[in-house]
């Protein structure tokens, strides 16, 4: 399968790779939301760390990803898109927008879903830590 130039660019020079500390460290920090989605058995795991201000603005984001090139590109792109957004704005990002931006073929749509899921999971985690109400269903209506 041929990859789009954008996927290749993200693969070679991924944006915002990293974390804000070990799993223990980030667990203890209230300003950090952690989202880990997927499972190694499925061939993909995405980890997103977001740093959120008291006003609910995502100031910084870091990702790590075990998955195909499209999954890496999706998470790299997701970190770019959510930086500077409020959590509500970030929650509005749809996987279909990622698909479009990266020209992902149909078999790679689930890789973009993973990126959307990781955003939701990280925000959920931040909300929980800070006593905000959380959505019941993190997996609402994906276009797959």
């Amino acid at each position, binding site marked *: 399968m041929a990859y789009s130039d954008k996927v290749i660019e993200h693969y070679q020079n991924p944006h915002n790779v990293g974390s804000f500390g070990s799993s223990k460290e980030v667990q203890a920090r209230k300003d950090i939301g952690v989202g880990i989605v997927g499972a190694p058995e499925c061939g993909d795991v995405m980890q997103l760390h977001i740093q959120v201000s008291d006003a609910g603005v995502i100031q910084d984001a870091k990702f790590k990803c*075990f998955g195909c090139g499209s999954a890496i590109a999706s998470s790299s792109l997701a970190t770019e898109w959510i930086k500077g957004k409020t959590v509500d704005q970030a929650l509005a990002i749809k996987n279909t927008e990622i698909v479009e931006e990266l020209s992902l073929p149909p078999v790679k749509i689930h890789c973009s879903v993973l990126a959307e899921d990781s955003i939701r999971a990280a925000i959920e985690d931040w909300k929980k830590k800070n006593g905000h109400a959380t959505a019941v269903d993190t997996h609402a209506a994906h276009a797959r």
Partner: protein
Amino acid sequence: MNKTRPLYLDNAATTRCDPRVVEVMLPYLTEAYGNSGSRNHAFGWEAEEAVEKARDQAAALIGANAKEIIFTSGATESNNLAIKGAAHMYAKAPEGQTGRGHIITALHEHKAVLDPCKRLQKEGFDVTYLQPPADGVITVDMVAKEIRPDTILVSIMWANNEIGTINEVPAIGKLCHDKEIIFHSDGTQWVGKMPTDVERDNIDLLSWSGHKMYGPKGVGALYVRRRKPRVRLEAIVDGGGQERGMRSGTLNISGIAGFGKACELCQHEMQSEGERLLKFRNRLETELAKAIEVTQVNGNASKRVPNITNISFGFVEGESLLMGIKDIACSSGSACTSASLEPSYVLKSLGVGDELAHSSLRLSMSRWTTDKEIDYTIASITKAVLHLRKMSPLYDLYKEGVDISKIQWQTH
């Protein structure tokens, strides 16, 4: 190295056709285009001569008699003819009934063996699929334990196409002969690479394919034993009665001529080639293990054909790894590379953990593989794995000392 085309290390999928083979084939497409079935003119005789020469060459490669070679379109067809043909011929009950006979094969066989067996199950045959051990080697004891009074056929491949492991074929053949059970082996990844003697090795039916041994695609052979015991098969393709009625259809003369030449070349070159490729394989494995922590060679370390290695690089997903080494053509057992999004069933059947199956690469070499290509491959893989580990959440967890298999993942 060629700048525009990737370096080719996917020879277990298919090989380049040897130019010496192509040379032999060409006249049968241009001037000598006769049908070997035309008995009354020179065009036909010429074609027949080519086919009989190739039959001799194929037989010589495996220690058989030329009369025991049936030309087919490849190993898939040979396996189908061997398995369905033998099952139907030796069935213990007529069509439409159950209890038609018992067949033994293994879970990590090629689909071209597994799917014919599945079809036979639907037709009323019983099939036992042996679970391979962690090293992938099917032993004679494993087969012996499953033999029943109604066992009619055992089909165990000689060398596995994903991990290169070698099953105990001569011993399994001996067991089958003692018990008067037909023994078939899919020799696609073995014949032409390793010395083969159907008498010494107790084979009744042996499949192999041209394009895995520097011959053309779309041509293969099935060895069918003619004495002690005489094995009979029910044909799948009926028609003009070619190939002693076992495989009707006008013969692929140029393909068969090329196949024969490929067999001859392999017979002469397999030893020196095997020694060279074994050195390459060992170098790939030891140097990659030295450069990269948490690597694992899949399958038995020593009972393997020299041209194939299958290595898992922990914490790195296979398709992204292929992307990082895109100037090397090879394959991965990762789910992301397969249309079904399932990781390699071969690695899974060995009990290789799922994440290591996703992290696997198969590198398979050929008679044209060079020292320089091996150096380049080691350097590229190392670079790509290290690049990806910087991005891998699993590698972080490993570094933190977390047991990945104990984590409860949130799946969707």
